[in-house]
Structures are given as structure tokens and as C-alpha cells.
């Protein structure tokens, strides 16, 4: 069910992305950082799901608030002439790799366990 809605949502998103008008280049910077933040939240969500401490509220709030705060920080950085968005990207991408590592190890364990079972039989 969840996977199904994810696929449907993704397809609709592709459609939406092509139908909606393109945004100006200056705004695309903010959207980019928001996307990175959102991706970070998604990977965080998956990782926490694996760790069995997934909380929907935390996930949703993280998804939106992180994106918005990242955008605000980018704007602030632009006003201050400091590339704050670089820091945000480093943090988000670093966390993304962390979470990806957790996910990877989980599935590796799963697969190796399956192999072990097969070989035991």
C-alpha cells in the first residue's frame, strides 16, 4: 500500500513538474536547497523506519520545516553575502550519507542472513 502510493505520488509529481510553469533562476537556488533538505528527511525517515523508531509527526515536520529553514538560511546568507547554503548542503548531504549507510547495512545484513539460511539448509 505505502509503496503503491509512493509510486503514484512520484508519477503524479513527474506530471506536475512538467505541467507547472518553470521558476526563475534566482528562485531555483532556494528550491534546490529545499529539495536537498527534503531528500535528507526522506532518507532519515527510511533509516528510522529500519531502526523501528519511525515517527510520522517527526518525519512530516522534518520534511517541511527543514526545507523551509534551509530556504530561509539561504536567503539570509544571500543578504549577508555568506554562502550559508553550503553549510546546509554539507549537513544535509552528510546526514544523507549517514542514513544511506544505515539503510545499506540493514539490507546487506538481510541478504547475508538469507544466504546463510540457504547455505544452512
Amino acid at each position, binding site marked *: *500500500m505505502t509503496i503503491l502510493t509512493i509510486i503514484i*505520488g*512520484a508519477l503524479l*509529481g513527474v506530471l506536475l*513538474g512538467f505541467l507547472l510553469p518553470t521558476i*526563475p533562476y534566482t528562485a531555483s537556488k532556494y*528550491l534546490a536547497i529545499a529539495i536537498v533538505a*527534503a531528500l535528507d528527511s526522506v532518507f532519515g525517515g527510511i533509516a528510522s523506519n529500519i531502526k523501528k523508531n519511525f515517527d510520522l509527526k517527526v518525519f512530516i515536520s522534518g520534511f517541511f520545516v527543514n526545507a523551509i529553514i534551509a530556504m530561509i538560511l539561504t536567503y539570509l546568507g544571500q543578504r549577508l553575502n555568506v554562502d550559508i547554503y553550503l553549510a546546509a548542503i554539507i549537513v544535509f548531504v552528510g546526514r544523507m550519507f549517514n542514513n544511506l549507510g544505515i539503510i545499506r547495512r540493514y539490507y546487506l545484513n538481510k541478504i547475508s542472513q538469507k544466504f546463510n539460511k540457504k547455505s544452512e539448509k
Partner: protein
Amino acid sequence: MTIKRDKETIILSVIVGIISLLLVGSMFIQFRAVDKSEESNLEGLREDELKTQIATYKSRYEETMEQYETNRNTISEYISTIAENKEATDLLDKELNESSMLLGLTDVEGEGVIITLRDTEEAIYSADDLLMLVNELKYAGAEAISINDNRIINLTDIISINNSFIVINSDARISSPFTVKAIGDKAYLMSTLNLKNSGFVDLMRINNLEVEVEASDNVQINKYSKPMNAEIMKEVQ
């Protein structure tokens, strides 16, 4: 794989779906924005790209300026050459015009005298009389002379044929009344012609011929219109 249909799972699925929709949608919007920005030049470029672009333009600008400078120098050279040529041409033109004027190849005007000669019942004008008049006019400084609108040039002949008619410039037959126009210092011309007893006017009047001399500020003399060829003579090298 069984599909769970309890309330919690549905809510979770819907929310996750919406989130994936938002995420993928915004990603694709961004992809398009980036793609488009690559197409539409300068405005969409990143800072370092802009820097290289500016550097390229600057070097190109410098090259063009150099080229421009060279071209401008060449052009100014050409212009000065043209000016020099023009000067030479102008000088030649001026010389040519002067020569033509002196040779009698141009219409001329200026102060001078108009002399009208008429045959009378007692006597008629001969070619010799006309020659004498022309000679006197030349002596008095006339620069251009014509008889009945036949320009007198350095090669002009005035001859009488069988004492019956006068030919000027080899083929123009002229007869009384003769209108002789001369351009020159009118006072000098008048005084030379009107010399007592030995002047042309008195000499003719003694011979019962009619002479009228009239000074004018604007005498117009036509050009010599026949072709001039040098067939036999050659320039000495």
C-alpha cells in the same frame, strides 16, 4: 504480500504519497529550471561561468579594439593618400583649365572692347585690315579675340580669297559687318585703337570705312570649337 487496510496504514500511505509527490514534483521543476537556464545565456550562468565568459569577452574585446585601431590607422593613411592625390589632381586640373583658357578652348568673359566694322559704298574691308586689327589688339594686350564669333587662336588664319571674300580659321567665310570682340584692359585697348592718325580707327576712317569701337565691362567670347590635331610635329624628347 497482504495489503494492510487499517486506518493508520492508509493515513501513512497517503501522507507518504503526498510527500513523494511534492518531492518529485519540485525536483522536476528544478530540473527544468536548470535545463532552461543553461539554454538562456548569461542570466542563468553560475558565477564562475560568468567569470570565464567575461574573461573571454574581454580578450575578444581587446582583440577587436586592436583590429579596430589597425583598421583606423590604415583608413587614415588611405585618407591622407587620397588627399595628396586630390591635391595633385586639383593642381593638374587647374593647369589644364588655364592652358585651355589660354589656348582658346573655353568660353571666356571679361572687360574689353567690341569693334564693329562695316563696308561702305566707297570701300570694303580686306583680310589685311582684319589682320592688322587683330595684331593691334594683341599688341594692346588682348587675351581673347573673336571675329563674328570665330575665336582667334594661335593657329588662326585670316585670308582673302580672290579678293572677293574673307576666310577665317580655314573654312568660315565671313563678311561685313564684322564684329570683333576682344577681352583685355579696356582702357589700354581703347587708347591703342584710338591713337591719333596712326591708330586703327583713324586709319580706317581715312579709307572711308566705318568703325565703331565700344568699351564693355562684360564681353563674352565663345571657345574655339574645331578639332585641333598635331599630326606632323612631335615633342622633342
